[in-house]
């Protein structure tokens, strides 16, 4: 329900539990108060200045692979069904 965006941790200040995250060339300070054992290099979901949790690279790959696979099954049908119109 809420705007959140994945960003990579590039620096952690253990004393304050504040991290610098990076996203497409933008750096931002976020609080790590809500996550355990975040490390530099981890991707975290950022929401209202807090890291909500870590993202799993492995799971993301799996999901993408699954999407590709789901799509491939139907590639033949693509040209006919690409713009099925919905209720435009």
């Amino acid at each position, binding site marked *: 329900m*809420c705007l959140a965006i994945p960003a990579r941790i590039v620096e952690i200040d253990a004393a304050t539990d504040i991290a610098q995250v990076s996203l497409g060339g933008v750096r931002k300070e976020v*609080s790590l108060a809500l996550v355990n054992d975040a490390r530099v290099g981890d991707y975290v*979901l950022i929401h209202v200045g807090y890291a909500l949790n870590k993202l799993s690279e492995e799971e993301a790959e799996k999901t993408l692979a699954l999407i590709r696979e789901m*799509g491939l099954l139907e590639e033949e049908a693509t040209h006919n*069904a690409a713009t099925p119109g919905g*209720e435009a």
Partner: protein
Amino acid sequence: MKYVDEFRDQKLARQLASAIAAEADPARQYRLMEFCGGHTHAIFRYGVQHLMPPNLRFIHGPGCPVCVLPMARIDQAIAMALEHEVTLCTYGDLMRVPASGRRSLLKAKADGADIRMIYSTLDVLRIAREEPDRQVVFFAIGFETTTPPTAVAIKAARAEGLTNLSVFCNHVLTPSALRTILATAGPDGVQLDGILGPSHVSTLIGSKPYAFVPEEFQTPVVIAGFEPLDVMQATLMLVRQLNEGRCEVENQYTRAVTEAGNLKAQALMAEVFQTRDRFEWRGLGFLPESALALADDYADLDAEQRFPVEIGEVKEVKGCECPAILRGVKQPTDCKLFGSVCTPENPMGSCMVSSEGACAAYWSYGRHRAPAAQAETV
């Protein structure tokens, strides 16, 4: 942007669209409610509905914290700001939501109330530290995603001895609302064949709390990410469950959502908050166990107790269909005010304000909104 761009890929989208079109049974209806306003926003922003077959329709749920906030709560916040002359801090989303008497936080601010838009509860802490002579009230709203940052601020205020900070708590709980929607679904209410489960709420609470949906209401749930491919994949997963006669909680958003959720955040919430017996939701009425209040241990930080106000009777704008829209039984275009009297500049209901509100989405991204074209359903 990693984890973002991959999930907005046009080619994969086309392929998924074909897959859905191919697998959807033309003989049946797929009425899928996206519970979250975030999903509503993504569906419109990326034009996902256009990629679906005609018999697959997204029904917009009540999962927008701005939309479901009763007008009385805004009236109450404005009264606090004006009568007790507090510094009221809140997220930008709330600024333009209509309150009684054609007011809003934005207008109250223009009229002299000290209302500040903040980006993070860290700002609230900073303001309270920098202005010790001001009483700072955080007007907290949001589902489980936005609740832990409030908890962090409350704990910090206590730890630092910030006696000038308090919280006007309006955090609400997803499962209760979902249960209400499902309980009232059916021939007289909204007809639902499946649920797209929340993304970020689920990162916090995990996938377990949705177990009651298939168990008690025989409706499949797929927890879905917010990127358009996430939505499409989850849609396909729902189509498959329905086609195969399955009825389960599935998790499409595995890169962020686990079964148990964020235990640290959950513990924090449990410490700082307690469940209210009942709380009013716009459109859904008073729902049991559907919202949080500050725990007894933190009652001294409760703005409702510190700054009591009385507000007049609340009259909803006549003709505004937000309640029905939030229950999924009407669409924005069913509202007579949509696009005539009610626009984002002059919103009559919260659904026209929040970027996750169905009316705002229809208005901002819908192709036809002029009177002549209103009959169409976008």
